[in-house]
């Protein structure tokens, strides 16, 4: 078998959907089956590659296991700061910098997996197939780029690509109120992006540079590695007060500025997560977008929020994260309980699932707020687990809607009689969602709460109520759909076709795998925790 490290494997994975996009563009536009086949093939290739990458990944290495860099553009800058260290010229460098570590690798696999399954679920798309699959494949590249980018500007570019692709996917192929949903989506997320960009620019202008000794060039760049190194180095300029450098240090980041940037990042990624009260846009998306798109949205895109929060918020600003942990924990608790209580009142299955996402993302916040290794592991586990579960649930919603033409709870009932397979999977998905041990949901929930208890025991105690409320709303929705007397209209409805059943089985298999053998995920992440996060935690715990 060939050695993956000899190839620019990350770029290959990233580019495959783009090649698929070209293929889709060349195919005739009325050939629905061909177009879907192309989309399935070009999402399966990155899936296989990323699984190989996952198997190949050296779990004992802490940092970036694979890194691929190339210079894009270099812009010469004015000589605006004092020349120390013999610097002769200044450059702003845009870099193509990809890398993965134990945090991004599981999310890359999650992305390729869910996108491939969503490609199967797109069988229910009814119009403009060519454009649909084109945007669909572009979206995958965007998401993968977000998880791989190791440069702030590159990250931003990919982040925006997902935004544009989602905008059209929601606005064209959704349900009745799709355009409204798309507009709200883009306004909110655009706002989030703008805030994120401010934070990024502030970061680059204070910590995002290094001095190339060979050419005596002072290089500004969005390099994540530079920023991490500078922020952590007590003798870096960013950490030296002006009086320590002789009165003038434009790079100094004061405590207040630390806090401001941290909070900007929390808001920017909090909108994506979403943290209450920034959640209304995602309700609309869940309700109005095509189920295949919601699979990606709920399964992956929401994870970008948490990913950004960890990658930029916690790693770059551990002290602020620690100081604000109680706030994050409270917000997480509110998300968890509020989402669950409101989900209990919904009359529309899709909205139950939407509020359920809010509730489950609350657990991610709680895990992060624990600010210890167990909690962080729990948060990441919950990200992956919720991605799989919500993708499965919306896959089912798509199949249900095709048959019943409604997902309003009061009109459903007794479907187990005419579609035992779909109902069985729905029940299994519901049980996974309410945290049944043996399925992935429990592990993330348990680790998050376990970690949280060490730092915030009372909040952890209250969060346990969420365990009960989740059972209440999940069972209400699932049993209303599948149990009880069946409506005559649904008696003749057929059970799942093979193309629908296949992704359901695959997703459920992954949910069970993670639930029974969680080490397959936690070990990958474990050493990233050891390498990157442990110093942060111990540093702060000691101090």
């Amino acid at each position, binding site marked *: 078998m060939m050695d993956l490290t000899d190839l620019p494997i990350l770029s290959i994975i990233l580019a495959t959907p783009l090649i698929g996009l070209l293929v889709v563009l060349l195919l005739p536009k009325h050939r629905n089956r061909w177009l879907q086949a192309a989309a399935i093939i070009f999402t399966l290739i990155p899936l296989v590659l990323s699984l190989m990458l996952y198997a190949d990944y050296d779990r004992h290495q802490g940092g970036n296991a694979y890194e691929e860099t190339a210079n894009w553009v270099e812009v010469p800058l004015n000589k605006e700061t004092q020349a120390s260290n013999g610097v002769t010229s200044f450059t702003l460098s845009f870099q193509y910098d990809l890398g993965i570590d134990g945090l991004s690798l599981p999310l890359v696999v999650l992305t390729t997996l869910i996108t491939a399954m969503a490609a199967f679920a797109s069988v229910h798309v009814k119009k403009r197939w060519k454009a649909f699959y084109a945007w669909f494949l572009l979206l995958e590249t965007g998401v993968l780029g977000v998880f791989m980018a190791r440069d702030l500007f590159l990250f931003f570019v990919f982040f925006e690509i997902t935004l*544009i692709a989602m*905008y059209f996917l929601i*606005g064209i192929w959704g349900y009745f109120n799709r*355009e409204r949903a*798309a*507009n709200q989506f*883009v*306004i909110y997320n*655009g706002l989030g*992006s*703008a*805030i994120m*960009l*401010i934070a990024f*620019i*502030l970061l680059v*202008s204070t910590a995002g540079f290094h001095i190339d000794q060979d050419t005596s060039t002072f290089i500004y760049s969005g390099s994540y590695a530079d920023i991490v190194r500078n922020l952590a180095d007590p003798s870096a300029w960013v950490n030296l007060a002006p009086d320590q450098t002789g009165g003038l240090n434009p790079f100094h980041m004061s405590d207040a500025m630390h806090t401001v940037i941290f909070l900007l990042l929390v808001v920017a990624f909090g909108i994506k997560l979403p943290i*209450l*009260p920034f959640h*209304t846009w995602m309700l609309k998306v869940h309700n109005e977008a095509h189920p295949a798109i919601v699979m990606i949205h709920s399964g992956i895109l929401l994870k970008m929020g948490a990913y950004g929060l960890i990658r930029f918020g916690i790693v770059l600003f551990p002290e602020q994260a620690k100081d604000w942990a109680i706030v994050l924990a409270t917000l997480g608790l509110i998300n968890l309980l509020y989402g669950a*209580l*409101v989900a*209990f*009142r*919904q009359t529309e299955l899709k909205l139950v699932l939407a509020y359920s996402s809010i509730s489950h993302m609350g657990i991610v916040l709680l895990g992060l707020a624990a600010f210890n*290794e*167990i909690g962080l*592991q729990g948060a990441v586990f919950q990200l992956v687990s919720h991605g799989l579960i919500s993708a499965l649930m919306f896959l089912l919603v798509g199949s249900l809607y095709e048959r019943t033409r409604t997902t309003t709870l009061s009109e459903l009932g*007794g479907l187990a*009689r005419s579609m035992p397979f779909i109902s069985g999977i729905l029940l299994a998905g519901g049980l996974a969602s309410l945290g*049944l*041990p*043996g399925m992935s949901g*429990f*592990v993330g929930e348990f680790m998050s*709460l*376990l970690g949280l*208890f060490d730092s915030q025991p009372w909040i*952890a*105690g209250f969060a*346990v*109520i969420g*365990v*009960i*409320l989740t*059972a*209440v709303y999940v*069972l*209400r929705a699932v*049993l209303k759909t*599948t*149990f*009880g*007397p069946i409506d005559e209209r649904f008696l003749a409805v057929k059970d799942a076709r093979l193309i629908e059943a296949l992704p359901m089985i695959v997703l459920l298999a992954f949910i069970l795998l993670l639930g029974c053998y*969680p*080490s397959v995920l*936690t070990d990958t992440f*474990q050493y990233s925790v*050891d390498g990157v996060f*442990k110093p942060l935690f111990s540093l702060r715990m000691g101090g």
Partner: protein
Amino acid sequence: MDSFTQTAWLIPLFPFAAFLLLTALGRGYRRAGVMIGSIGSLLALIMSLLVLFERLDPNAVDYSNSYKWIDLGDYTLKVGFEVTNLNALMLVIVTAVSFLVNVYSAGYMKKDERITVFYGYVALFTFAMLGLVLSDNMLVFYIFWELVGVCSFLLVGFWYARPAARAAAKKAFIVTRIGDAGLLLGIIVLFWYMPGHALDFSSIHNVFNEGQSGAITMTITTSIALLLFMGVIGKSGQFPLHVWLPDAMEGPTPISALIHAATMVAAGVFLLARTFDIFEASAAAMHTVAYFGGFTAIFAATVALAQNDIKRILAYSTISQLGYMVMAMGLGSMTGGMFHLFTHAFFKALLFLAAGSVIHAVHTQNIHEMGGLGSKMRITAWTFGIGALSLSGIPPFSGFWSKDAILGTALDEDPFLFAIGLAAAFCTVLYMSRLFFIVFTGKSRVRQPNEVRESGLAMAIPMVVLAVLSVVAGFVETPWNGWLGNWLTGGGEEVHANGFAIVASIAVGVLGIYVGWLMYGRAYREQSPAAARMPWLVQLLERQYYVNEFYNVVIVGTVRWIGKLLHAFDEHVIGGAVRLVGFTAVAGGRVMTRLNNGQTQTYGLTAVIGLVVIIAAIVGRRFW
């Protein structure tokens, strides 16, 4: 030596393999399905018996083995199994009842079109219950604890098309989950306070057995014990979380025998036994446990007096008997609790199976539509009678010995609880006499009397086997022979032999039967004399003290109300604010991007806003 003990992990895998096979085969193979399920549980039974025989050797040592499950930073969560005398006893109880129920269901569920699904669920349940029994640490225990809960849920809702079954299944899951949330929190607290963050039972035993020498304060010990006890309250149907168990009777009757009488509901008592050292370390926790148990015993026994559904009477009886077991644990007698669990598993499973045989014959669960069945269904009547006598605590049936062990302890430890236990025993005898006389004696009130006939062999044989066990199971521990206690606890517990307790309990038994015969045996009455004199009291009991109604108004109502309030808040306050902001932005956008048409307009607007903010940021940087 000890070879079976070391391979005990195989035991749950037999039913699990049966479950996988049944699921893979689908609904087509009805006969094969029954065979697969039964063979799976039979193999588990044989293996469990072999393990038990090994454990009978007085030199047998406990065996455990565990593997890494998750690395958590510096700690490791493990999964593993353990064989002790206590586990070995439970293994045999579970596999024996499971096997008999498998055989019985071949007759009882014969005509159900989803019989293979039923066998699959039963196999899955047996797997989960055996996993629970064998687990070596609290986390694995909790995993299987939840799995048995979900199997119970699936089987209660087996006839899913019935709204009542759906409601009962949901209720069973949610109400037990309230307790489980406490249990989960208890495990989390335990994790952080245990030395070395160990969750395995032997470490727990070692740490808490030393008394209060460790770093764990009394407050923490009591908190952990009470949180764990919440799980017991939920699972073992103790007041105030007992409400799911009577409703769970919506499930098929073999399930009521297996899950809701003999095994799963006893898991709470088993948990008390497994973590007994934690409870013993806190006197406050022990008192709480004892009084919750005692109250549940008398509370449920009085409700059972006024029920008219044969399965509901037995369900309340189960709650009451579980209360006895919990009370015994709280009084410090682990032997008493486990002994009663052991005998109860047989005679209560028997009563349910016999009740199922009756229901199978008369197609109703209302005892007032039965009557005089004794002459037509001799095996059922005899075996039910044996079960009833055993439950009533009449010597020499097994229930007498185990109940006497509990009452003897109570008399020594807490006379008040002894009185409660005795009163509950009287109620028990009374409701069982009422049940027996109304169903099996007198004139027939069956709608179609000609169709009433004894059930077939598949159903009769398990009943007879259980009847034999109900007679003999009590002799493992008698006032003059404390074999079970010595074997379970390594000889640490004294036998509470108390002549007064024995006499009192026999007297109560005989008196109860006599009063029962006076009230219901001499002649059938729709209404008992008590109902004529104190209708309010009978109604109070019939409606189960209005606990369900209370919960519906106070708890369900509150959750609904909060949900409604938050939903309105979400839609109007947050949504309204968003609409306002959105309206302003779009209105502004119309002005700025008048030249553009179409959907991209909004995106352009956002880009513009973004750009403005960026410029502001760059400029603002200068003034920072």
